[in-house]
């Protein structure tokens, strides 16, 4: 059933996000020409228009991330916590499946937005010479990697960072979902309670995180550093990854519990 949920989740969100990607790429194409014409001493009106296009490009880049984030939140609210929740929450699927479908789709769109933003920058800044330089730099990076004696370590670092990014994305989603399920459990002022829950949880986790670090440092002052870079990396990675994992479990259980026992659709 997760596959079917994913299919419908991608359809419902794709119809909102894909047109946004098209707009961002189109604006980046305009920005490409605008960048090249800015210093050609054009009339004031035309110059202003070019500056507006460039501004639209940068606003679009930031807007793409904000929009993806908003779609993720609004989708969860509409599909689970509002009227559509009467359909979603009575489908013959588990709450776990519903949650994972939302998380996976949010992650995929977030990653896609990063790629689209990168692509739009490439389009806007595209020049043959620039691409040749970029390819040269990329070749240099590969050369550096293959000349490095300990390739396994580099691969390990890269995989660890990628894994951390994915888990952080999941935790970020769950953080927001859990706060929304807390807020929407109240009879009134649901959005306000969701925001209050977000701040309270952030403050509590901040205290716990800060306190835990102090305890760790007091137990072992070399908790963040070691003799080799590799050891230091994994020491820090374990701490950060472990804390993210712990937060993720807390947010997941909180979200699941609220949907299971505190759901209060209007």
């Amino acid at each position: 059933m997760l596959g079917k949920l994913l299919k419908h989740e991608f359809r419902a969100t794709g119809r909102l996000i894909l047109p946004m990607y098209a707009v961002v790429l189109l604006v980046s194409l305009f920005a490409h020409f605008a960048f090249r014409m800015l210093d050609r001493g054009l009339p004031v009106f035309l110059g202003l228009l070019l500056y507006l296009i460039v501004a639209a490009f940068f606003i679009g880049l930031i807007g793409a991330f904000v929009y993806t984030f908003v779609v993720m939140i609004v989708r969860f609210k509409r599909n689970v916590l509002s009227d559509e929740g009467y359909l979603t929450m009575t489908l013959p699927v588990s709450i776990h499946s519903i949650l994972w479908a939302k998380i996976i789709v949010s992650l995929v769109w977030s990653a896609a937005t990063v790629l689209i933003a990168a692509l739009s920058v490439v389009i806007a800044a595209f020049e043959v010479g620039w691409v040749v330089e970029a390819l040269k730099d990329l070749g240099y990076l590969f050369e550096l990697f293959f000349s490095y004696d300990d390739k396994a370590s580099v691969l390990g670092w890269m995989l660890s960072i990628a894994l951390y990014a994915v888990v952080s994305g999941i935790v970020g989603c769950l953080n927001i979902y859990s706060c929304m399920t807390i807020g929407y459990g109240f009879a009134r002022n649901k959005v306000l309670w969701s925001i209050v829950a977000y701040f309270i949880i952030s403050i509590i986790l901040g205290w716990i995180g800060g306190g835990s670090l102090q305890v760790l440092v007091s137990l072992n002052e070399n908790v963040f550093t070691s003799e080799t870079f590799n050891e230091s990396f994994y020491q820090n990675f374990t701490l950060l990854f472990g804390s993210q994992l712990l937060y993720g479990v807390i947010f997941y259980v909180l979200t699941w519990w609220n949907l299971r026992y505190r759901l209060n659709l209007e």
Partner: protein
Amino acid sequence: MPILEAKSLTKRYGSNPALTNVSFAIEPGRIVGLLGPNGSGKTTLIKLANGLLQPTSGEILIGGMSPCAKTKSIVSYLPERINVPLWMSAEELIKFYSDFYADFEPNRAQDMLRNLGIGEKMRIKEMSKGTREKVQLILAMSRRAKLYMLDEPIGGVDPATRDYILATIINNYDPSASVVISTHLIADVENVLDDALFISRGEIVLYDSVDHIRESRGMSVDGLFREVFRC
């Protein structure tokens, strides 16, 4: 085994009781009217049966099971509000239901849409309120469910649509299945009911067959309702 059973079921919202110590059992093959004035606990009871609320105490069982993914696959639920995504068309909703409900019959839904002159390509947001309600009812009644739970299916629609909705319910449910119809418009549903379950302020005040009510009390269910719930 009863298809729907409540055992000492209590639900409170904070300190406000919505249902208090409710017990009853509905056997397969019955059409039951869940009858009570506004705010009597009808919707709460239906939401509990669909797992949208959790009991404060007691239990509610569907075919002997507490509400879960398995019970949801045998219950066809029509909520009192529009629950389908407004951006979807009727055709897309039929595909959606086909994907999730093994007992959904798309041909039946398509036939009913055609009979009502509702275009499959039409988006829900383009439809009138009455048409949206009809589409939802068609989707709910196109399932071969063991239990249909219809929350106020005739509330807020014109008399002609009421007749259509009741005819759709009667013509489309499997006789071995049970139907629970929640309403306060008794006169309209009385003729299709086997049993009547009167609920008042969260408590069951009467659960009897419609025939027995008429015989023993010498009045219609609507008449009894007016007597029991006289303001």
